[in-house]
């Protein structure tokens, strides 16, 4: 049976269409979820896409956290549902306390939009098990508030528990502490990533096909392949 992967649309979401397309190219059925509908409609995993939910008012992701669909997703994520937050989705996951730390204004204050090399450092998550440890991938990054910050104890804990999922290589685009581009929760089912794997799934539009691995990982995870 084809896996069903939900893609949430908030007011101001930007990359929900691309995320749904990436899910389809990876071989799953994308299911569009609406911010105001608390039902997850039987999906097996959820992607929170990039964009500017609620206009980035107050703080990025701060208001989306209280959307009806998020209450259900937070509960389901605590129960093991695979959830991938991309860019604004990563910000929402931090605001919802599913992931530690916060994402702040890029240190140099410039919006950064470029193809970025990442090193995959944890392949034990629901969203990265299709990669090799240490594998370098090329994924577009595009953010204004992508600077990952957390206190030293949290950073040390993330590193000690192997929860830094990906790091920037060849230049840190936003000043993120310890070059962190992606992290996971303790269980490995929730991943937040600042760059955009959904923009690297087709030769026509992306710099590589490396982004597909995140989505095929979720499918592998769902059929019970060892993570």
């Amino acid at each position, binding site marked *: 049976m084809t896996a069903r992967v939900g893609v949430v649309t908030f007011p101001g979401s930007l990359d929900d269409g691309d995320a749904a397309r990436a899910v389809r190219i990876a071989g799953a059925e994308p299911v569009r979820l609406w911010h105001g509908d608390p039902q997850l409609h039987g999906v097996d995993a959820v992607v929170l896409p990039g964009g500017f939910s609620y206009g980035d008012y107050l703080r990025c992701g*701060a208001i989306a956290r209280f959307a009806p669909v998020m209450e259900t997703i937070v509960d389901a994520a605590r129960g093991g549902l695979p959830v991938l937050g991309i860019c604004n989705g990563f910000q929402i996951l931090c605001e919802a306390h599913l992931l530690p730390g*916060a994402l702040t204004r890029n240190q140099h204050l410039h919006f950064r939009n470029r193809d970025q090399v990442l090193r995959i450092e944890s392949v034990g998550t629901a969203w990265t098990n299709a990669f090799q440890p240490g594998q370098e991938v090329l994924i577009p990054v595009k953010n204004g508030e992508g600077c990952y*910050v957390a206190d030293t104890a949290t950073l040390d804990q993330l590193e000690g528990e192997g929860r830094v999922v990906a790091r920037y290589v060849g230049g840190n685009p936003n000043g993120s502490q310890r070059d962190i581009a992606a992290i996971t929760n303790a269980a490995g089912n929730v991943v937040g990533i600042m760059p955009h794997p959904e923009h690297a799934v087709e030769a026509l539009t992306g710099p590589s096909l490396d982004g597909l691995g995140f989505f095929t990982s979720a499918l592998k995870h769902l059929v019970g392949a060892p993570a």
Partner: protein
Amino acid sequence: MPRVVVDVMLKPEILDPQGQAVANALPRLGVSDVASVRIGRRIEIEFTGEPDLDRAREIADKLLANPVIEDFTVRLVEADETADARS
């Protein structure tokens, strides 16, 4: 009716690039005696009844501030003080 004012500031250890950018622009105004600038956010809350500081603190903690990176203070101000602050 008094209002509740919530001031939200980045924690001291969190880099404030906006504040730095402003500080770096000051020499162009001929200002050379400013050591640093930090930028925060002021939120004014009007309750339907009596102002409730505890409720305001809850609002600040859950929504207005992100305690991971920000500190906040909550205080009561009279309506005219609010007007002064705007002028």
